[in-house]
């Protein structure tokens, strides 16, 4: 069976890796290339590069660094940010990325999911979902790259998960916004709720603070992977140490 995946997420803004608290106040944490190489060497199972400014400012992600990443790392990686068409995706995949992740553009044009899946196969198509609890309901937000543009879509998260799967999404990254950047642990309640209707792999995102949070997300939910950013960027958690710890807890991990 598949091992549980540890996935560092590199939020990219203006060509640098940044990290914000609850989607704002971004600070620069380092160069894309150096961090990618470091996580690759430490045993990350996969990397996600998320160009957080791109969708917001109507630009698309610059492709040059994708090629450089493909040249230096030997694990899969996914690129997200402002991918609005087949040709945007093709350029990124041809440059060496394994998957593209779409979020706001999928909400604006759900058929894009189907088009991407038909063209490249479902395994290339990841849907990022930013979800937050509101009046006891989980609701999808769009344009979350910048607090000025953030928008409540009034779509319930479980409905959107059903829809993206039926359109051909191959994986879902569920970012639980109440937890993002605050390092209080993954949102296990929401993850379990959403996993009920999920036939494709679901990656937990938002809230990792301690190594025990990873243990919890893998033992208390059926998430396929756990994504985190700041704990890795700030060296609060070192990936190979985390993986040894999880392996000792009898979790199926690749070391």
């Amino acid at each position, binding site marked *: 069976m*598949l*091992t549980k*995946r540890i996935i560092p997420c590199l939020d990219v803004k203006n060509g640098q890796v940044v990290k914000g608290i609850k989607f704002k106040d971004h600070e620069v944490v380092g160069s894309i290339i150096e961090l990618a190489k470091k996580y690759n060497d430490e045993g990350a199972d996969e990397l996600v590069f998320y160009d957080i400014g791109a969708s917001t400012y109507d630009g698309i992600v610059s492709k040059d660094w994708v090629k450089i990443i*493909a040249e230096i790392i*030997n694990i899969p990686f996914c690129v997200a940010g402002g991918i609005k068409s087949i040709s945007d995706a093709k350029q990124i995949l041809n440059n060496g990325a394994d998957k593209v992740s779409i979020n706001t553009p999928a909400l604006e044009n759900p058929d894009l999911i189907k088009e991407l899946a038909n063209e490249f196969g479902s395994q290339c198509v990841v849907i990022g979902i930013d979800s937050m609890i509101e009046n006891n309901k989980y609701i999808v937000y769009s344009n979350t790259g910048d607090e000025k543009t953030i928008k409540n879509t009034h779509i319930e998260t479980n409905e959107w998960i059903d829809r993206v799967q039926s359109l051909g999404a191959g994986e879902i990254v569920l970012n639980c916004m109440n937890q993002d950047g605050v390092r209080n642990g993954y949102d296990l309640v929401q993850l379990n709720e959403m996993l009920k209707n999920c036939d*494709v792999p679901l990656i937990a995102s938002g809230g990792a603070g301690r190594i025990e949070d990873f243990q919890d997300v893998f033992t208390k939910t059926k998430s396929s992977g756990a994504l985190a950013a700041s704990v890795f960027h700030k060296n609060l958690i070192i990936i190979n140490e985390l993986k040894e710890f999880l392996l000792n807890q009898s979790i199926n991990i*690749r070391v």
Partner: protein
Amino acid sequence: MNIGIIDCGGANLNSIYYSFKRLGINAIITNSVKELSEMNAYVLPGVGSADVVMNTLRKRDLINFIKSTKKPILGICIGMQIFFDYSEENQTGCLGIIDGNIEKFNVNDGVNVPQMGWNKVECDTDNSLNGHYYFANSYFNKDSKFTIGYSSYGNKFSSIIKKDNILGCQFHPEKSSKAGEKFLTYFIKSI
């Protein structure tokens, strides 16, 4: 030594090119039979779907070339699947080099589809190839006369096949870290 990466459409040929480059092996990406015939070995990648890859090979007159070559050839993922007779994916007739069919993973077996992530491979003929490799597939071959490596996802399935000059892997060695490098080195040694 030169390796020809057969351009049969689909994205991500560069990843395979880079993985050989990291091992110090020269590779070119081409769909020209003339260029390919000057190479020492081939890689048949294949990202996308079986029908698209087969149609592209047909259009580029590469079917006979692949079937008749005696040089080592490595099929990766769909590149391995099309060595078989038939794929359930859009009911596609394949190359027929290896007896058997390709079927789809079923969520009723308690697995997510597609399979995405690192799975364990156990090789019957060479245990130095045992390890975790990266998979990204919805379709698989259950078992064949030429299967030498197995993995499990709901059910047991073929993850490495070998017949004469043909080697195939369901995983992506170019994305499988050190295990993947070892597997590519195993292929290179056969050249």
